[in-house]
């Protein structure tokens, strides 16, 4: 394993490429690719990589990029791509198709604000807009988390108990373009971790002609949706298994569905995802040192939403503050109602939403501490709070 100072995009490209290469003795790998800031360097990395068996196909749009992925995956290849922001929005029709076709495609989503007005900085609204597309969604907080989660994503997506596409998200620029030190895995390790190979059960086969996804009646469609729901419910257990195996191969343990810190005796807990969760760690640690019974949860798995994990971690907590770097107009933050629903049987727990860092606002420890202070003063929850941060 090599420790390197690299950008998040480099790390993501490396992990995707090694995972693709690991399927060289099976049906190889493929993907369609179209560039968009801040994801472009991932595509460039993949196009430069010399795959033993497989190729990345440059196409004219994100919609076609996902179409190529679907074709490749139906052909049995290990399939992946990456996109961002309005690119994801344009890809959306085929994102849903890939989910409902149950193709184990892995896509890295580099979170960027949806325009207009045009903005290239981080905001999770782009990938969260695709939350109902029957994809798993995992949000990563660091370069190492990103690399490890991409490798886990292939294991979970391709597991016969799941067989669903998986999106791995990172913060635009704050992760994608920042140089951090990361343990980059070697090919042999990835080969060992993904040794089962990609096997799509409904892959197209000229010796057994079939139609995939033709017209169905309501009953069949409902059955299909129920199967997807069942598959989603298998994810936490499958993810846990994969993490255990990952630890065996790589010697470190990536975070699971959620990562809780100091929650055991906490009266107040903040929930955040991506890099904001890392900046929050320092703030919570300082408050702890000062004697506040405070903890935090890094929320990683968003689809399926790990309700039970939140219930367990937040049992008996008085105040929960949710930091949402995303916005559903007319509602509020998107993580907030998910967490509130998880805690529906804890009627005396306050679940307060904070919209913070939208459009890439620079989330400083000071701003987060002000949120903590606001939360500590609360006796009841209110409407989502728009927390202003520095320009």
């Amino acid at each position, binding site marked *: 394993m090599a420790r390197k*100072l690299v950008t998040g995009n480099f790390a993501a490209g490396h992990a995707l490429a090694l995972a693709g290469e690991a399927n060289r003795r099976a049906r190889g790998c493929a993907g369609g690719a179209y560039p968009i800031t801040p994801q472009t360097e991932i595509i460039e990395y993949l196009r430069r990589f010399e795959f033993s068996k497989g190729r990345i196909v440059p196409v004219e749009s994100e919609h076609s990029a996902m179409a190529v992925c679907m074709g490749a995956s139906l052909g049995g290849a290990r399939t992946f791509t990456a996109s961002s922001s309005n690119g994801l929005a344009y890809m959306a029709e085929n994102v849903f198709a890939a989910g409902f076709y149950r193709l184990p495609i892995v896509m890295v989503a580099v979170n960027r604000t949806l325009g207009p007005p045009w903005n*290239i900085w981080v905001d999770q609204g782009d990938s969260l807009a695709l939350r109902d597309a029957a994809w798993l969604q995992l949000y990563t907080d660091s370069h190492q988390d990103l690399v490890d989660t991409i490798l886990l994503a292939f294991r979970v997506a391709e597991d016969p108990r799941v067989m669903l596409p998986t999106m791995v998200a990172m913060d635009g620029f704050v992760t994608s373009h920042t*140089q951090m030190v990361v343990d980059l895995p070697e090919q042999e390790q990835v080969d060992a971790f993904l040794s089962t190979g990609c096997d799509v059960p409904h892959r197209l086969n000229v010796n057994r002609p079939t139609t995939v996804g033709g017209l169905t009646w309501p009953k069949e469609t409902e059955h299909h949706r129920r199967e997807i729901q069942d598959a989603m419910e298998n994810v936490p257990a499958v993810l846990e298994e994969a993490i255990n195996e990952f630890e065996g191969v790589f010697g470190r343990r990536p975070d699971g569905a959620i990562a809780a810190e100091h929650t055991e005796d906490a009266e107040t807990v903040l929930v955040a995802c991506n890099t904001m969760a890392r900046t929050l760690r320092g703030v919570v640690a300082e408050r702890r040192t000062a004697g506040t019974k405070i903890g935090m949860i890094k929320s990683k798995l968003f689809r399926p939403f790990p309700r039970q994990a939140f219930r367990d971690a937040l049992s008996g907590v008085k105040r929960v503050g949710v930091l949402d770097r995303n916005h559903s107009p007319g509602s509020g933050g998107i993580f907030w109602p998910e967490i509130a629903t998880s805690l529906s049987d804890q009627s005396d727990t306050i679940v307060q939403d904070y919209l913070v860092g939208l459009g890439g606002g*620079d989330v400083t420890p000071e701003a987060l501490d002000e949120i903590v202070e606001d939360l500590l003063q609360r006796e009841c929850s209110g409407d989502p709070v728009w927390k202003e941060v520095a320009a």
Partner: protein
Amino acid sequence: MIEMTIYGRGGQGGVTLAKLIANAYFLEGKHVQAFGVYAAERSGAPLQAYVRIDDVEITNHNQIRTPDHVIVLDRTLTTPCVLTGHKPDGWVILNSPEPPDAFAELFPGRQVATIDATTIAVTNGLGTRTVPIVNTTMLGAVGRVLGLTLDDVTGALAEVNFGGGNITAATRAFETVRAERLAGAVAAPATPPKAGKIMGLLDDEVGGHPRIHTGDWTTRQPHRQQLAPPCNNGCPAGNDVRGFVEAMAKGDHNEALRILLETSPLPGVCGRVCPAPCMDACNRQEFDESINIRELERFAADEGHPHVAIRGVGEPHRWRDETVAVVGSGPAGLSAAYHLARLAYRVTLLERDSELGGVMRTGIPAYRLPRDVLDREIKFIVDHGIEVKTGTSVDQEELLRLTHSFSAVFVGTGLQHLRSVDLGNGSAEAGDKTVEQGLAFLDRIRVDPESLTGLHVIVIGGGNTAMDAARSARRLGAKVEVVYRRTREQMPAIREEIEEAVEEGIVLRELVSPVRLRHDGVGPLLTCVRMRLGEPDDSGRPRPEQETSEDAYFDMRCDRVLLALGQSSDLSILPEGSEVRNQESLLGLTGAPVFAGGDFAANDGTVTAAIGSGRSTAWHIHRTLSGEDLFPPPAEAVAGSDVLHTHVFSHAPRAESKTLSMKERRQSFTEVRSGLSAADNSVEAVAEAGRCFSCGVCTVCDRCMDYCPEGILLRSGGGYEVDFEYCKGCGICAAECPRGVIYMADL
């Protein structure tokens, strides 16, 4: 934790410097983080990059607001603003040729280090003075100041495969950086300016967008230039070729004709017989094929109406008092007379023959230049109120008389002296037509076309007269051979004429020179000698030399020999002691000034050059008589193909004139080429004109405006205006200007 902020401009490598610094500490075993603030990363835009260094894992992901050290890459960013949040015990490291204490007033009490990174970088080939890439140089200075070793610095560079000038520059900076704590008390950091009101999308003003005066970032700006199109530059008549073609492209034949008539009164002639140096100069030939300018000129002349193009010709108007005599009505004389008449001089045109036109009438066969075209254009010229005296020979004595009855005299008598060769047949009887000058032959047969059926004609020469004589003889039924002492490549005749002659069955005998003509009882025999090409002569063409082998001499049977060996001026018209001078009147005369023009003054050998000479001589006469100078300012630089951006254009084949069938060509003097089709509203000619690149001249195509990513190019006065307050100097307008009108200039 150590935190650093780097202030630089896009293109100087600030983000890479952050990575290099981080790498140097990473190799020391530290935890590091390096990142830039993105979005304004265009060249020249002010940007910040950040580095964090710690002994433990770094979890903060926000921008650095209280840096320990500040690094400034650009002189223009070296202001108190860089001290915002700076910790007084940290360093301020500047790219500057000044010593640190030069910044005592700006940064009192701070620890300041300076290095002339721009000079070091540029010396080592890293960027240019306008946009120096100073990051690797600054790394050396930063490393030294912060206590890294030179090995740490070069190791960081090696880690990212930076070598060569980068290593040298970083080492030089490491060794020469100057650092000290400045005198004075640490000043309070500057208060950042208060943010203005943020506008909403639905506000009256365009909402949401901060106004950033991005013009401050730039190191270069777009400017407009007008260049001379190569066709205009190459036209001996001085026509605005590009201008008339543009009018043609708009389907406006009369406007096209008007533009042509501004400079040349004979577009119908030029559109048929000009060798078209404009087409040789046309930039489009590098793309596919040159524009068919000659056919377009002919089309404008044939389809446009000169009296519509230029109104008021022949109507009564006020004449000047001065009078001008024009001697000779060839292209130079007609052109001079036309331009002088347009300038309101009373012109008398004197012609020896019974009809006007000179060599255009007597020397160019009708299958190239039909008489009605020539007559039509001459009539338009004469319609300007020119008095014509045909059948009037002017000799030396008459010329002197003219200088006493006119205010000025123009002599354009062309080339009256025909070169000959002694074939040893001096004893030929009068009326023997065996050997005849080609020009005399052409003049004779246009009046009295004699049948040459069954006769064998040899034409000696390789110019246009040789081709005209040969092709005319062919039409009269002869079997024709052209004997030329060099090869076809060196023939001075227009290429198409040679090609068409060969098509019509004329045999070219290259590298052959005639020696003598004799009769052997059966008929005439022309003895010739074979030639070979030697070293180039003064004209740049290979000098023909006689073969010395035994079989070098051979006989050719023939009935007629036509000589087309070239012509020269007959200067006997001029008084003793006078001298032809370019642009000035002749010397040695006592009366009114006498000017010479056309082939008589400078043997360029084309109708087009003679037209140009006639016009410029007319302007010289006008300047002498009135003091007014009509000559345009010196031409702009010529728009070469290197300034064009031809990705804009699509390939399209050149439209060609229809030609007469070969059978008709061999038998009749009907015009060979019938020009571009005028069918369907001249769609063919309009499309052909539309192929023009308009090299060096703006056509207001809007491409610069459409492609400007900032939307700060606006139409203005037939061109465009750039709002330099917002122009970042990206250069897209220049890169998208097809015609080389927009160029980028360094500030």
